[in-house]
């Protein structure tokens, strides 16, 4: 290994550009998507008729237990003839995949709410919908946000799987640079450091948030 500052300087802008345009975009958009979808699953699993809930549970289980690269390749194979972009496929796959994990986090958050809260809502004749919106979700969210943040960080570090469908995210850019210059160490070390620099402080922040949100 012979570290060259020239190579480092040359590849860094390419990495950062791919980071901002793809890696960060996918992380943010798909995290929001996963957070919304996950909440929908959590509510549906509680409120839907038993059979429907069981079917949805099984589907989520399958999504959760199969790899993202396979999911990317599969969806991509089905839309490749249409003009849907690979990036869009990526956004959807990441959002749906991580929504299955976030649904679990929400479930735990919802179950941590004491039954007295539901009972008080019933005693006040509040509707199901209003009870969820005004009482349950705000309290569950408080218990769940740090865990959602941690899943978003996990998603962030999984974004290089986008290589599977040739979306030019940061590690693809690093590999490309390495392939054309035969200088692999600078791009991969820098890419790793960028991941570390973005994820570590966020993880620390989530830990802090967890402590602060723990009580009312």
């Amino acid at each position, binding site marked *: 290994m012979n570290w060259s500052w020239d190579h480092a300087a040359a590849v860094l802008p390419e990495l950062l550009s791919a980071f901002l345009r793809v890696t960060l975009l996918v992380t943010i958009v798909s995290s929001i998507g996963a957070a919304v979808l996950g909440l929908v699953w959590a509510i549906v699993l509680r409120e839907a008729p038993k059979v429907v809930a069981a079917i949805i549970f099984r589907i989520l289980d399958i999504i959760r237990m*199969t790899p993202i690269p396979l999911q990317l390749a*599969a969806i991509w194979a089905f839309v490749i003839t249409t003009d849907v972009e690979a990036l869009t496929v990526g956004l959807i796959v990441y959002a749906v995949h991580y929504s299955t994990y976030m649904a679990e986090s929400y479930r735990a958050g919802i179950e941590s709410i004491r039954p007295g809260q539901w009972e008080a809502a019933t005693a006040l004749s509040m509707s199901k919908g209003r009870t969820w919106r005004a009482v349950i979700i705000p309290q569950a969210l408080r218990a769940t946000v740090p865990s959602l943040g941690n899943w978003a960080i996990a998603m962030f*570090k999984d974004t*290089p799987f986008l290589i599977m469908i040739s979306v030019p995210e940061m590690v693809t850019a*690093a590999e490309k640079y390495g392939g054309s210059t035969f200088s692999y160490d600078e791009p991969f070390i820098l890419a790793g450091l960028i*991941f570390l620099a973005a994820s570590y402080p966020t993880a620390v922040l989530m830990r802090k948030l967890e402590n602060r949100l723990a009580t009312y």
Partner: protein
Amino acid sequence: MDAFLDDLSTAAPRFWDGLVVTLQLGLGGAAVAFVIAVALGLLTLSPNSWLRAPGRMVVEFFRGTSLVVQLFFFFFVLPQIGLELDPIPVGIAALGLNYGAYGAEVVRGSLAAVPKAQWEATTALSMGSVQRMARIIWPQAWALMLPGLNNLLVMLVKGTALASFIFLHDVTFVADDLRRTMGKLFSFGIGFAIYYALNQLLSSGMRILELRAQRRLGLKPESRKATKRAEAVAGVG
């Protein structure tokens, strides 16, 4: 139906080869990850900060830098400094280090969650540190860490799907490859089924371990068989 069975018999050898690669990476990675998780978990719990600090740094480094980056680093950079490795050991090393670092947090957290009184009791009984860990603390922490390790095992198995990035022909590669000749629905369907079955199998195995660990701590009722055996030994019933 017959056509499906024909397809299946054509595809089966290919998927079998893929499964062998996936299993090598998954089981090899899990074994390495477990050893690393225990070692780093103990290290990060050490009262000695000369051991603890480097342990923490290694954990945060491998957790923070992304699995695929680590894989590519091992695959592309190490040969340049004369470390020529086959792709399978490279994959196993990357999976083992990455998930080992995550596992270290589970191990550390579970050990730390064993009540302080248990640690103090071992001191009161003048136990040595190895005896204390092996006989008192670890068995209690083991029951606590299994659910977390189970989650990580599923993630590790999914992580093996990066095999094709280093030119290995695992299940994901085969599914993607066969879609041209055998149809998308068929090839990907089989691919999903294989991973799902594999992960379900591993998860139930982990749950059995968990149940046994809890039983040993008296947290779950003994199985009927175990009760019978105990009664037989005690000469009752």
